[in-house]
């Protein structure tokens, strides 16, 4: 689905504008219609009053005479006004010829001197009609009223008018209103579209910058001061993300360049030895010496490859830890079993004093952790030195009487490939990965590892088991 922010905004704004406009138009239309009807009613009432003056009663005879002007208005098919003169009993006395054979319905008659209005709809046209109820006294008896009771006659005048003209005006008005609405809508849509574009321009700027950021150019950044305030947070978030990415990327690059160096060097050694060995015929002792060196290099290489593979499996999250209940004592015994031949060779005594605890962890991982640390404690020890393993509950301490680690190296020993100078130049066969593997394995299982050391005195590694 192709979601366009602009399209959605334009659409919803248009609907809103349309609704507002519609309501407004409705009120306007109703208001205007009322005013128009009022005006019509007024003229109808005026006419009715005027016509009522034409009604005369003399000696019981009712007469009704239209003037010439009135005839033009009420007579003939083109006339727009109609009237019916009735007695208030309903009997029709006179009907304007313009009505033909039609007549107005007789609904409730208002009180004398009062008016009422109604509208009739017939085949598409509207008519407004006024009911005017009035009374006339006999002219003759008027003068004799002193003697005789005056005879009163009640009349009902129904004056009507076609509303064609008015509805034409209203129709035209509605037409204008709709045209105006469409124009306004188009204008609004255009305006909104422009506005959206304007507000998106900052985002475009950001995305342009983001596009510039690539594998080769990870240091490109969005300048948060140069985008709109509202987008500053986005810019900062993007920059932060790329900072973190860049760091991870650079760490990986550094790791690979170290790996490349650490792998190529022993391979160069092996290649050089074989090439030189084969250059000419040599003594048996020489061949044995060469093979020993090759063996050493190959052993180193295979240790290195194993460690690197383990680390990259962990980096990719492919190292699955199998959590189970472990016994500290069992792990330490297994580790000692692996490590004791090396210790014996260097004449190093290993003592342990463990009050067993059980904890949850991966067995192989913990074996690796303890072997790596014990390996260091032996490798970086003095001839006839000692290693002590003890614990207080979940805190396990491995202490040695070795060469110690200089203060400046101490913060770095958990870094990949980091080796203190003394251990580097001495050929200890280390890879610089043992502690970083231990560190990552233990952190992954929510334990902890710390190291304390003093040059010439020894080193203390503290492992906090996961609980």
């Amino acid at each position: 689905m192709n979601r366009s922010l602009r399209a959605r905004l334009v659409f919803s704004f248009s609907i809103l504008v349309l609704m507002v406009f519609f309501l407004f138009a409705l009120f306007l239309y109703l208001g205007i219609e009322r005013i128009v009807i009022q005006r019509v009613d007024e003229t109808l009432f005026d006419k009715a009053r005027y016509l009522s003056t034409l009604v005369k009663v003399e000696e019981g005879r009712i007469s009704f005479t239209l003037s010439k002007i009135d005839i033009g208005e009420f007579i003939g098919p083109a006339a727009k006004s109609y009237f019916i003169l009735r007695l208030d009993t309903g009997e029709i006395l006179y009907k304007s010829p313009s009505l033909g054979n039609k007549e107005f319905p007789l609904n409730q008659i208002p009180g004398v001197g009062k008016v009422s209005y109604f509208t009739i709809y017939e085949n598409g046209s509207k008519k407004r009609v006024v009911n005017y109820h009035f009374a006339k006294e006999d002219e003759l008896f008027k003068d004799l009223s002193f003697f005789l009771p005056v005879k009163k006659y009640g009349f009902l005048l129904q004056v009507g008018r076609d509303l064609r003209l008015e509805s034409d005006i209203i129709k035209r008005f509605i037409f204008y209103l709709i045209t105006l609405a469409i124009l306004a809508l188009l204008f609004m849509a255009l305006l909104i579209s422009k506005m959206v574009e304007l507000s998106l321009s900052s985002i475009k700027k950001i995305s342009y910058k983001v596009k510039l950021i690539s594998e080769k150019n990870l240091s490109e950044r969005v300048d948060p001061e140069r985008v709109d305030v509202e987008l500053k947070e986005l810019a900062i978030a993007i920059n932060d993300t790329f900072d973190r990415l860049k760091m991870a990327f650079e760490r990986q690059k550094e790791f690979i360049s170290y790996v490349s160096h650490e792998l190529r060097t022993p391979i160069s050694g092996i290649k050089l030895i074989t090439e030189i060995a084969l250059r000419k015929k040599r003594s048996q002792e020489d061949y044995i010496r060469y093979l020993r060196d090759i063996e050493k290099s190959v052993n180193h290489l295979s240790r290195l490859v194993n460690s690197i593979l383990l680390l990259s499996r962990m980096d990719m999250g492919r190292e699955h830890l199998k959590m189970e209940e472990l016994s500290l004592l069992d792990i330490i015994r297994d580790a000692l079993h692996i490590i004791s031949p090396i210790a014996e060779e260097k004449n190093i005594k290993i003592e342990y004093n463990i009050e067993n605890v059980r904890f949850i962890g991966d067995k192989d991982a913990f074996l690796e952790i303890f072997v790596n640390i014990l390996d260091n404690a032996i490798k970086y020890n003095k001839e006839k030195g000692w290693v002590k393993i003890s614990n207080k509950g979940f805190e396990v301490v491995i202490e040695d009487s070795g060469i110690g680690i200089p203060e400046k190296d101490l913060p770095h020993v958990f870094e990949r490939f980091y080796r203190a100078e003394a251990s580097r130049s001495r050929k200890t066969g280390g890879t610089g990965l043992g502690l970083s593997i231990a560190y990552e394995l233990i952190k992954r299982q929510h334990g902890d590892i710390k190291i304390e050391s003093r040059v010439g005195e020894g080193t203390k590694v503290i492992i906090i088991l996961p609980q």
Partner: protein
Amino acid sequence: MRILVVEDDEILANMLKEGLIEEGYAVDVAYSGDDGFYMAESMPYDVIILDLMLPEMDGFTILEKLREKNIETPVLVLTAKDGIDDKVKGLDKGADDYITKPFEFSELLARIRALIRRASGNRSPIIKVKNIEINTASREVYKDGKRIPLSSKEYAILLYLVTNRGKVVSREELMEHIYDWEKSIESNVIDVYVNFLRKKLNKDLIETVRGVGYIIRKDE
């Protein structure tokens, strides 16, 4: 010709030394950057083979500091990285050549010879003086077109004098370039070798400059 190998991998460094000695070079090894820099600035090496990733002082720093001190010994960088970044950076910092690990020993030798030739201003691997012809690539010496076998020390002395021909070379200088640190030799050993060379080749080839040393003159 004397070579300094700065490489922290002991097996590689020691094997390089062994191979280069067999080729008639005098070789010293430094296993750390600090040692390497100290040795490079205190002895007149003809070539330095320099690893980049070193403990203490890395290869780039050594290069930079040497060039700062105007020590112009040709440097052959050993890199372990694929990227050309390091090569470019190395050459920028004053390296004369580079070779990527793992390398062919024969290629390394060819590059060392080329560096020595370039330093002495010779283009071709064949040097002719009087009726003597020296092929520095095959390390063979001919007199009037006939091959004369030389011991490696004899060859080393001849090569040093020939690459510096026209210049008086003292016995001490010869010793510094022919022997490494492990061997301490009395200076009359040089005289003995020079005499062998005169007998085997041409008695006018190497002249003695009394109280100073030896010289092979350039052909007119």
